[in-house]
């Protein structure tokens, strides 16, 4: 086994590399360029937010990082290896709230990826309960999704994404369906979970405030064709607080993103 380690490029777990990635959708009438020459580096443990108007390809890019879609050109590596198909040991994915299985309890939903791999029931239960505890849902495991609020459902989704302890967590507009108060609370919750686990997070959103509030780095994308127009660092200290929202740093970062988006809309 020793030589293998020399062949495989030694990239730290959780690093994401996107190199000259393009995506073309072929329709009957024309080819639509969804992404053009996108390159991006995410260092392990960083919280990166992809933001941009509809059609800029941010969700497409996320799906490719998850192995759910293949790029037309370029390469993507996660922890140093390409991702030709979904690999829940390397990447956990969190979708909008509709993606919980309504016929399973919260606990069974979190166990689902473990059950797919044939892990023993008792082991599954322990790990699901640990994950639910991590997201603050201790004691809610026996409820079905329709018995949970929107925010709680999203906590279950996060627990499901984390249950196999992957170094990378990809989130596709996870809070889009929530009301604003719940959304703020869930943002703080997510930052707490992120700080506790040290995962690399890539988070897609429409909301500029959410982007700046959560991120270490914000990637701004524009449509037709989808590409990266800006990559900014958020110098605000952690933990983030509600007061920062009205500060000058926050305002100028949000303005800068907004100017890009207005130009492309």
């Amino acid at each position, binding site marked *: 086994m020793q030589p293998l380690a020399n062949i495989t490029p030694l990239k730290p777990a959780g690093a994401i590399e996107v190199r000259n990635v393009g995506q073309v959708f072929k329709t009957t009438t024309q080819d639509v360029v969804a992404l053009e020459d996108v390159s991006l580096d995410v260092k392990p443990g960083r919280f990166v937010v992809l933001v941009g108007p509809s059609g800029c390809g941010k969700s497409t890019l996320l799906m490719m990082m998850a192995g*759910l879609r293949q790029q037309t050109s370029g390469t993507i590596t996660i922890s140093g290896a390409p991702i030709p198909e979904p690999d829940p040991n390397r990447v956990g994915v969190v979708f909008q709230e509709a*993606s919980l299985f309504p016929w399973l309890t919260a606990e069974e939903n979190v166990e689902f990826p473990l059950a797919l791999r044939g892990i023993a029931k008792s082991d599954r239960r322990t790990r699901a309960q640990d994950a639910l505890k991590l997201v603050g849902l201790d004691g809610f495991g026996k409820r*079905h999704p329709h018995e949970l609020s929107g925010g709680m459902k999203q906590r279950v989704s996060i627990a499901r994404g984390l249950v196999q302890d992957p170094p990378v967590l990809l989130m596709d507009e996870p809070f889009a369906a929530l009301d604003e108060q719940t959304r703020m609370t869930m943002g703080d919750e997510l930052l707490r979970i992120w700080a506790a686990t040290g995962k690399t997070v890539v988070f897609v959103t429409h909301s500029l405030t959410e982007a700046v509030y959560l991120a270490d780095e914000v990637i701004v994308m524009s449509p037709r064709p989808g590409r990266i127009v800006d990559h900014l660092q958020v110098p605000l200290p952690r933990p983030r607080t509600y007061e920062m929202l009205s500060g000058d740093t926050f305002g100028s970062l949000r303005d800068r993103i907004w100017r890009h988006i207005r130009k492309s809309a």
Partner: protein
Amino acid sequence: MSAATLRRLIVISLIALWEILPRAGFIPELFLPSLSSTLAAGWNEAGEYGHALAVTLYEVAISMAFACGGGILFGAVVGSLPRPRILIMPMVSSLYAVPLVILYPVFTVWLGIGSESKIAFASIYGFLPTMLATAAGIQTIDPQLLLAARSMGATLSQRLVRVIIPAAIPTVLSGLRVGGALVIVGVVVSEMLISSAGIGYLISRYRTILDSPHVFAGVLLVLAMAIAFNAAIKWIERKAAIWQTGTRAGQSAEETVPAALQPAT
């Protein structure tokens, strides 16, 4: 008074009226024999009715297996593959508007007047709604659920067993409810038209000799059969789908599907 008590009262008073009105002479015995004389007629010919019931139940059971088994199988294929759907669905939908009972004389020419022609007719009669409901149930599965399962590394067969089948259960059950009821209708109607055995045959034979108590004894048996079938489906629904109320599919399955699938008789 609760709705359930009120319902029971209505049923009890209807039964009481059935006994009182003919007895008091308000309705001639030829039109409506009293409940007691109906039961007595059935009891006196218990052997004959028992034999007829056995024949009918046998035909219903076989037709149910063909209609439901075939309906679910074909519905699953048509619902999940776009090409068969485009080819077959319009034909099936227009076939559904045809009063299928016109085919029954043809079946008796092909298969004789024994059980085979009844089974063939009732199977086709119950097959269509089961198939349409299953196809609809599979088509309306939320694609987010399948995407989420794939992101957790579910193989095609795991997605079928753990996502598609449980998600389709409520709509399939509502299809079974309609399809199964139509199987009973199909068997009894075909027995009444051309046959030599079964409850429908008895009803029709006693009618030609104007023996109303014996006609109504047969009607009671068919009623009992339909009520037993309904109770069985309700029991399965309760067992299989505790979560029905929590999902779109579950809510619409209860009301809209049976209404939309009312057949032309």
